[in-house]
Each structure stands twice: as C-alpha cells, then as structure tokens.
C-alpha cells in the first residue's frame, strides 16, 4: 500500500497538486487536498472539463455540496465506474479515495506524468524556429520597391548585390602553434596592415573574414571529430598523432608522384592535366582507413626498407629534393586545411612548377637507372669470377655451401620461433585491451542512461513482490493439498467408524436378548458412541466459530479505516450549520 501511495503522491506532485511533505499516504489526505488533487488531474486530462471546477472547497455548505456533485459528475464523465457522489469528496473514505486517485492518475496523458522531457531535440527547435520566421515573413505586407523603408531591408532584396568573394587574409598569430621568429614579430608589429585594409573592396573584407572564421571553426571541429574517433584509439599524444599522419601523407604523395613521373616518362608527355589528375587521384584516397591499422612486424620492416631506398635515391637527387619536399609540403597544407578559396591561377602556377621539376627529375632518373644497371652488371661479373675461382676445389666448396645453407635455414627457423613467442603475448594484450575498451564503452553508456531513480526502485520492488507472490502461491498449494489429505483421512475414518459400529451393534444386539451382561455392555457401547459423536461435533463447532471470529476481526479492521464515526460527526455538524441558516433564510 505504501508503494501505491508513494506513486500516487509523486504523480500528483508532477501534475501540480501541492501535497505537503508530511502527507505520505492516502489516509492522511484531507478533503481539501483530495479536491485539489482531483481537480488538477481533471484539468490535465480534459482542460475543458476542469476549467470550471475550483481547486478548493468553498466555505458555504450548499456550495460545497454543489462542488462535490460537479466533481463526481466530471469523474463519471471521464469513465470512472465506481460509486461516486458528493460524499466521496466531502466525507472521504480511504479505499474509495485510493481507487479514484488511481483511476485518475492512470488516465493522465503520458507526457504530463514524465518529469524530464528529453524529446525537444535540436531538430524540433530548428523546425519551430523556421516556422516562426516564415510566419513572421508571411505577415509582412508586400510593398512596391519605391515605398520600402530601409528597416525592412532584411526581408526584401537590397539595391546592390555583391558576389561572395573570399580572399586569404594574413593574420597576426600563427595557427600551428609554433612561435614566430623575431623578424616575423617585427613585421606583424610594424608593417602588417590591419585586417580590414588588406582587401580593397568592402564586401570582400566581410566575405573574407567570414570565410576565415568558418574555415577555422570547421577545421577545429574536424580535428575534434577525428581525434575522438581515431586519435584516442591510437593512444598517442595529439602532437605524435599529427606527426604520424603528416609522415603517412608525405609517403603517399611521394609514391604517387614517383609512379606518375615514371609513367609520364614512359608515355613522354607532360601537361598540367597530369599533375592535376595526380592530385585528384590521391585526394580520392584521403579517407583510407587502411593506413591507420597497425601493421605487423614484417610489414613495418618492408615499409622501412622501402623508405630507406627512397631516402638514398632522394639524396642522390640532391637539390631537386628540396623543391619536391616544398611542393609536397604545399600540397600537404592544401589537403589538410579546408580551403575553399584556392584560386585556379594559384593552382596553375603550382602545376607549371611541378612540370619543370618532373622533367628535371626524369632526366636524373634516367641517369640513375643507368648507374644502377651498371652496378648490377658489375656485381654479376664479380659473382661469376668468384665461382670460376672456386671451381677447382668443387667438392669441398659444395660441402661448405651446403653447411652454410643448413645453418641459415636453422637460423630462419629459430627466428620464426622467437617471433611466435613475441606474437602470443602481444595478441593477449590486444585482446585484453579490447575487453577494457568494451567495458568502458558499456559503462559510459550506462552512465549516459537517464537517471530516473524512482522508476528503477519501483521496478525492483515490483520484481520482489512478484517473487514473493510466487512463494506464497506455492505455500498455499501445499496447505491446500495438506487440507485435502486431512479431509480424505477424516472421511475414511468416519466411514470405518460407522461400519465398525454397525457390525458391533448387530453382533451385540443378537446376544443382548439372552444375556444380562451383554445387554449392559450394549448400553455402554451406545453411550460411548453417543459421547464420541458429541465430542466430534463440539470440535467441529469450535473450528467453525474460530473461523467466524477471524472473519469478524478482518471486517472490524476494514471498517475502522473508514473513519465513519468522524464522518458522521462532521455530517451532524454540517447539518446543524445548514439548519441554522435555513430558518434565517426562511
């Protein structure tokens, strides 16, 4: 009962009834409180119905009577099927009030019973804002161009329309977080014109400022997004993560440029479109998540040897490499920043520079290829010379070579075993960390669940109650089966008793005609039977009387809850009060 009362009071508080703190059960509800609760529920369920009803009982007796009747009528209109009348509200009894309040609380629309409205999402707000703005614009009357005042300008087209043309601005601080050098600082301090003077056309100033701001904001957002999704997984600091990403992109650019340079040296045609195609192709791969997975040990060594080859080749190229790296830096920056304001002539300049560099590098490439071929041929000559030298002692040399081959095979095997040994714990750790991640995700999900304490407590209680009821059901079944057993035994015994008595009775009666003592014993038997019957009867009567006592006690308890005496006294007082008035009014 306490849980039910608590739920009722909670719901009534949310509807707007002012339930005082010390009232924690329906028993303690006064008539005023009952009326207030019922009226506030009615107002939520059906505003039209509830508007005409006052929240408090008026002082006059007849007015109170009328209010009680209207409340009862309203509740019955909604669909309450129990007995209702003015007496339910003026002279309330606990079970009636409880059932009425339960009915009303169930009828409350779901939205008002929820405390936190988490459905006003951003999209709903946006839609509402859009609808309000459209309504406001529709309400403004149309005026011809000559009659329009400037204050209406936002809603109507202005005289002049400039195109949104953003140009890059040079700002004072450096975005990458590196400290500028002394000369730069002097330039910033003394010579750099203020931002608004860097562009001559005023709308251009506005567009460039807005564009610059949007670029910074979206770059920050993208970085946040990337860091939250992939950066945290890689478990590096932001600085290391950025460095690694830069190295990766640089490698990819190198590969692409090299392959494109080689293919263009085969076809023999250079044009700006090649470079732009190049840039297009690796721009398309920019979201390749494959690059982020941790490679195995062998993959890393492979990449490492490749970069070593690259760097040695690059060193041979000498000064041209610097330009190439600058070119790649530039393209790196272009790719990493969200630049919507790159002009085509800037890009073309870059392309022509690229063409010159490529042709220069192609020539160097050819020279290097020839050199490498020469090297290879020299190596081959050396090997052949050595084999010629070894030929005279062919047998022992063959044995030596075989021994060498065996030792190297054994070494390979041992290395593989070592690698396996290393791999197993790493895999274990990987699995463990994945577990931890999963647990963390689950716990964050759990925390983000809405903290609705009362609901979970109630569900717990409900589950407890359900299990209790199950146990009680089992006990009742046991008791019922015991009772049935007992009853069967009683029936058996009674039957046996009757049969034995009938047999004994006949037997002794036959002999009683002749013998005096047998007649006496027959009388004793009859008396014994009679007395036992009476005993059994008394026992049964005692049992039924005990049951009646229990029923009456329950009835007394329930009637005591009705406060009938208090209500009767109040009715008497009210009757007296109304009688006092009526003779006056005559």
């Amino acid at each position, binding site marked *: 009962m306490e849980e039910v009362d608590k739920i009722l009071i909670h719901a009534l508080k949310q509807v707007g009834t002012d339930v005082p703190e010390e009232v924690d059960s329906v028993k303690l509800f006064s008539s005023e409180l009952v009326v207030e609760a019922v009226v506030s529920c009615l107002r939520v369920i059906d505003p039209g119905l509830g508007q005409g009803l006052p929240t408090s009982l008026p002082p006059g007796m007849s007015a109170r009577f009328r209010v009680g009747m209207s409340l009862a009528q309203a509740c019955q209109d909604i669909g309450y099927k129990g007995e209702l009348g003015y007496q339910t509200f003026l002279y309330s009894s606990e079970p009636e009030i409880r059932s009425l309040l339960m009915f009303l609380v169930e009828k409350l629309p779901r939205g008002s019973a929820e405390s936190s409205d988490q459905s006003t999402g951003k999209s709903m707000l946006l*839609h*509402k804002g*859009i*609808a309000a703005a*459209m*309504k406001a614009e*529709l309400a403004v009357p149309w005026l*011809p*161009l000559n009659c329009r005042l*400037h204050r209406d*300008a*936002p809603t*109507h*087209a*202005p*005289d*002049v*329309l*400039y*195109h*949104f043309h953003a140009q890059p601005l040079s*700002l*004072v*601080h450096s*975005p990458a977080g590196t400290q500028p050098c002394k000369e730069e*600082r002097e330039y*910033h*301090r*003394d010579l*750099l*014109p*203020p*931002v*608004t*003077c860097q*562009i*001559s056309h*005023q*709308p251009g*100033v*506005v*567009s460039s*400022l*807005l564009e*610059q*701001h949007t670029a*910074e*904001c979206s770059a*920050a957002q993208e970085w946040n997004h990337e860091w939250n999704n992939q950066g945290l997984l890689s478990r590096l600091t932001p600085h290391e993560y950025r460095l690694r990403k830069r190295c990766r992109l640089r490698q990819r650019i190198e590969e692409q440029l090299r392959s494109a340079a080689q293919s263009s040296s085969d076809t023999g045609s250079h044009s700006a479109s090649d470079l732009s195609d190049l840039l297009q192709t690796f721009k398309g791969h920019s979201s390749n998540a494959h690059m982020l997975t941790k490679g195995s040990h062998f993959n890393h060594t492979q990449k490492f040897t490749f970069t070593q080859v690259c760097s040695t080749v690059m060193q041979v190229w000498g000064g041209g490499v610097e330009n190439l790296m600058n070119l790649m830096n530039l393209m790196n920056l272009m790719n990493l920043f969200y630049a919507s304001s790159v002009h085509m002539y800037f890009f073309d300049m870059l392309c022509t520079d690229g063409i010159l560099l490529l042709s220069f590098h192609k020539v160097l490439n050819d020279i290097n290829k020839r050199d490498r071929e020469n090297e290879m041929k020299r190596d081959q000559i050396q090997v052949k010379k050595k084999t010629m030298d070894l030929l005279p002692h062919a047998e022992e040399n063959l044995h030596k070579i075989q021994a060498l081959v065996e030792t190297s095979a054994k070494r390979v095997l041992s290395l593989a075993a070592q690698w396996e040994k290393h791999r197993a714990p790493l895999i274990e750790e990987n699995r463990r960390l994945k577990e931890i991640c999963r647990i963390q995700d689950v716990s964050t999900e759990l925390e983000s669940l809405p903290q609705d304490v009362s609901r979970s407590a109630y569900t717990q209680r409900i589950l407890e109650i359900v299990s209790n009821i199950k146990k009680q059901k089992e006990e009742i079944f046991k008791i019922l089966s015991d009772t049935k057993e007992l009853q069967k035994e009683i029936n058996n015994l009674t039957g046996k008793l009757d049969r034995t008595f009938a047999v004994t009775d006949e037997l002794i009666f036959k002999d009683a005609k002749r013998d005096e003592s047998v007649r006496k014993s027959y009388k004793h038997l009859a008396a014994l039977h009679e007395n036992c019957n009476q005993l059994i009867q008394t026992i049964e009567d005692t049992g039924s009387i005990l049951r009646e006592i229990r029923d009456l006690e329950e009835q007394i308890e329930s009637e005591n809850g009705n406060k009938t005496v208090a209500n009767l006294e109040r009715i008497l007082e009210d009757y007296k009060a109304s009688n006092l008035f009526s003779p006056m009014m005559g």
Partner: protein
Amino acid sequence: MESSESVQRGLKLLADPCVFEPRSFSVMLDVCFRSVLVAPGDASVLDHPELKNLDQILVKQSHTAVVTFVLECVKLNTDKSTLSSCLEELSFSAERIEIFHNKLVSPVHALFCNIICLFSLGRRLPEINDVSWRLQYQIKSAQVDKVDEPFYLITLNTEVNKEAESSEDVNFSCTVEQLQDLVGKLKDAAKSLERAGQM
C-alpha cells in the same frame, strides 16, 4: 554560437583590464566598428593615440577578433542573452558586455551592418515586382491555315539589380490552360508555405 580559437584569444585580450583599460576598451570598439563599416581600407584606422601605447600585435589580434565576432553576431542575429553568455565565457566583465551590446545595436551600426555588409552579399534570384499581360488572338500562321486561339503574353517585371546593370524581366507566352496551370501551382506553393509557417 561558435567562435574559433583565434577569435576567442583576441576577445580574451580585449576583456583583460590589464591590457585594455576602460577608456582604451571603448576606443578599441569604436575603431573596430569604424574600420569594418564606415571606412574600410583605411590603413590608419588603428592609429589612435589611445592605442599607440599598447603592443601593436595585441591590438591587431583583438581588432581581427572583434571584427570577426561582430560580423558573426550580425550574421546569426544573436540576441542579447546569447551575446552576454558568449562574452561571459570569455571573461568579460558585465559593464564591458553592456558597452559592447550597446555599440552593436546602436542604430548607426545596425543599419550599416545589416544593409551594407551582409544582405548585399550573395546571389539571389530576381524578385518579381509586377506583371503585365497581353491577350492576343491568333488567326493564322505560316504553317497552319486556321489557328483561331487566344494566347497570353506575360511579362514578369523584376527588380533591377544595379550591379548587373540590366533588368532581367521574364517574358513568355502561353495558352489559357498553361496559364491556369501556372496559377494553380502558385496557389499550391502559397498554401504549402502557410502550412510550413504554422507547424
């Protein structure tokens, strides 16, 4: 309202009373508003005697930040509460917020901001001002001997865009059914607009 790091940094400098005293604060705001609205391209706009004592780098940083912030405020049409909450986060004192807000909504600045800066940027379809129509009756044509049909010639006068230096009137001819179809579609569009406004 989102602002980038550089804007936040510049505004924090502006809010700092050690860097910008109250007098130089209001002078700075005036200078910033003038530089973007009244006299753009004027390189001497930051050469105010009050601002000469301060570090020019800080002055330029906060100038950029304030100008960007003002343009963003006007673009998003922020009300006073959003503006004050943004500035409070950047540790502006209440009186400085008040001064900023007053300068932002003062009639002079608001007028310039709205008309000159932002609403004259962008591309727009020409707005229809007026309609003139002519009903003609076609009797014959070179291909067909007998036509006997009425046609409408409709001209939609649009607003003149001074930069484009041409009036982009829309001229077309249509049959009666096509005109009815067009009017029906316009009515549908108006109704759906009203419905969207009531959502």
